[in-house]
């Protein structure tokens, strides 16, 4: 169970058997509420979130009460870091003028609609969360264990690179998000990397569901289940339109295809999308 009071960044000291891990929320409070309900119904013992609460979606303040009420620890994402410290951008690092336009627009909207209290709460998020799952040491982070905004794409991340990260950061299971597309890879008999995907927007696969992961371990065998989560995406799209967010963002929610900020995708992931 989560430690009493939901102290940020800590799960209880006892080994867990089953946890739900949420990736970037991107202000999608509708999906977050649905995910919490779905994970509870599946009997998970704990939930955690790997950061990037804001961006992309509407009314960023709406995700905070959901996380606090469910006592969900949150790792600091690059967006959380920028917003809580009042930096001038999201540190997404786009160079394409079109990508940059949308990234700035999204950041400015999120920044000006996040309350000072919530910004302060985010400033207490830890860089990583460690916990025991069965007999395995799990390390949760946002991008990579060495760099908050590092992209670890399936087609651009060698197994030997992940093995080195796991060794250097003393973990059996590395769990991250940041890219928005879920994937997993077994590194050795008892060592894994898992990208839990994102709750904030679909996985660029033409489906409107968003994804999260359930991790289970019995002694030292890990089982990873990626959960496609149907939620009221039309309600979210409507709210985004009311907030006058770009039609391109709303199209992504309605169609499941990414329309902006595609510069960061490697060849294989890019080719699977529509744009």
């Amino acid at each position, binding site marked *: 169970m989560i430690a009493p009071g939901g102290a940020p960044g800590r799960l209880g000291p006892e080994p867990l058997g089953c946890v739900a891990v949420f990736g970037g929320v991107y202000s999608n409070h509708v999906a977050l509420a649905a995910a919490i309900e779905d994970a509870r119904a599946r009997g998970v013992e704990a939930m955690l979130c790997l950061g990037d609460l804001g961006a992309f979606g509407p009314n960023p303040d709406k995700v905070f009460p959901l996380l606090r009420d469910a006592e969900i620890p949150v790792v600091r994402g*690059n967006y959380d*870091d920028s917003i809580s410290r009042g930096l001038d*951008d999201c*540190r*997404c*690092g*786009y*160079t*394409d*003028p079109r990508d940059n336009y949308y990234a700035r627009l999204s950041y400015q909207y999120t920044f000006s609609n996040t309350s000072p209290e919530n910004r302060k709460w985010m400033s207490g998020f830890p*860089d*990583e969360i460690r916990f025991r799952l069965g007999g395995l040491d799990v390390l949760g*982070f946002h991008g990579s*264990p*060495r*760099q*908050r*905004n*590092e*992209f670890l*794409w*399936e*087609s*651009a*991340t*060698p197994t*030997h*690179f992940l*093995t*080195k*990260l796991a060794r250097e950061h003393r973990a059996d299971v590395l769990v991250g998000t940041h890219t928005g597309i879920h994937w997993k890879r077994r590194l050795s008999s008892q060592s894994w990397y898992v990208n839990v995907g994102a709750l904030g927007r679909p996985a660029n696969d033409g489906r409107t569901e968003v994804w999260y992961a359930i991790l289970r371990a019995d002694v030292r065998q890990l089982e990873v289940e990626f959960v496609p989560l149907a939620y009221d995406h039309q309600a979210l799209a409507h709210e985004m339109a009311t907030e006058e967010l770009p039609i391109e963002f709303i199209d992504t929610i309605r169609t499941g295809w990414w329309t902006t900020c595609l*510069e*960061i995708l*490697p*060849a*294989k*992931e*890019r*080719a699977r999308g529509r*744009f």
Partner: protein
Amino acid sequence: MGVAAAPVVRRLPPSQAVPNSVVPHQSPPAPHPRVSLRALDQLWFQVAGTVCNLRCHHCFISCAPDNHSFWFMERETVREALEQSASLGVKEYYFTGGEPFMHREMVEILEDALAFGPATVLTNATLLPERRVRALARAAEASRYSLELRVSLDGVTPEMNDAIRGEGTFARCLQGVERLVGAGFLPIITTMQSWNDDETESILRAFREVLAGVGYTRARLKILPPLRIGEETSRSRGYDAAERVTHDMMVDYDPSLLLCSSARLVTANGVYACPILLDYPSARLADSLAEAAARPVELAEQACYTCYLSGALCSNMPTSGEVHL
């Protein structure tokens, strides 16, 4: 950002600023800022040496059919470096030249690399007959990792491109792009900025139109700044005396923006700091990769100034504004 040509003064914290009379043998300040390798994320291969089928007027290492200062790498040499790279935790592989497809075993070398991780090949796309493109597509399909084709095109018209890259290269390059796209690739089109900043938007629009004309409707574009060395010094200009990286400029600067903090270049003749400085003996770090990885790089050359301003411009992905833990 301080870019003036300040005298080279090494700043010491007050606790270390002891008078010379107390430490008479204090070592002299390094003449140039030094950058250590943070992690060997990118391994570059000068696979085709300096041999190229074209003779571009902006080439920063003056590659040409008759430039044999660096020769082709043996497939076995590449394979040995790949083996070594796995224990060093390399994240991605880049193949450059010269023109990599001048190498008769280029497809096989890419297959070797794709067994280890994602690979990128920098090409002018003029040596891509259908058969080779099909072989590349098979190699890409067979790997779990991405194969990126990075194609140089330096203008949106034959006049604009061919003035830099040589007569007829615009049409030949577009034919190569068409074949790649037809085989399912989404090449990254790289272009050196030869226009003013306020023209960028219209130039990018024109690039998209030209590429759509050969069926490439989802064009990936990457703009590179000119590197004022090699042939480029006579095409436009060389660096001004003030354009170099000083110790003062490194204060509050994130050195991870520089390629040499995360990459090394293997050639047929030793390991270098980066793919830009091939013509500079100061950039040759060692015979072996392990030695070169352990050795810091001196930002002694003026081309380092462009990298300083632009961030690791040679990488596929943008690298500005990293947030380290």
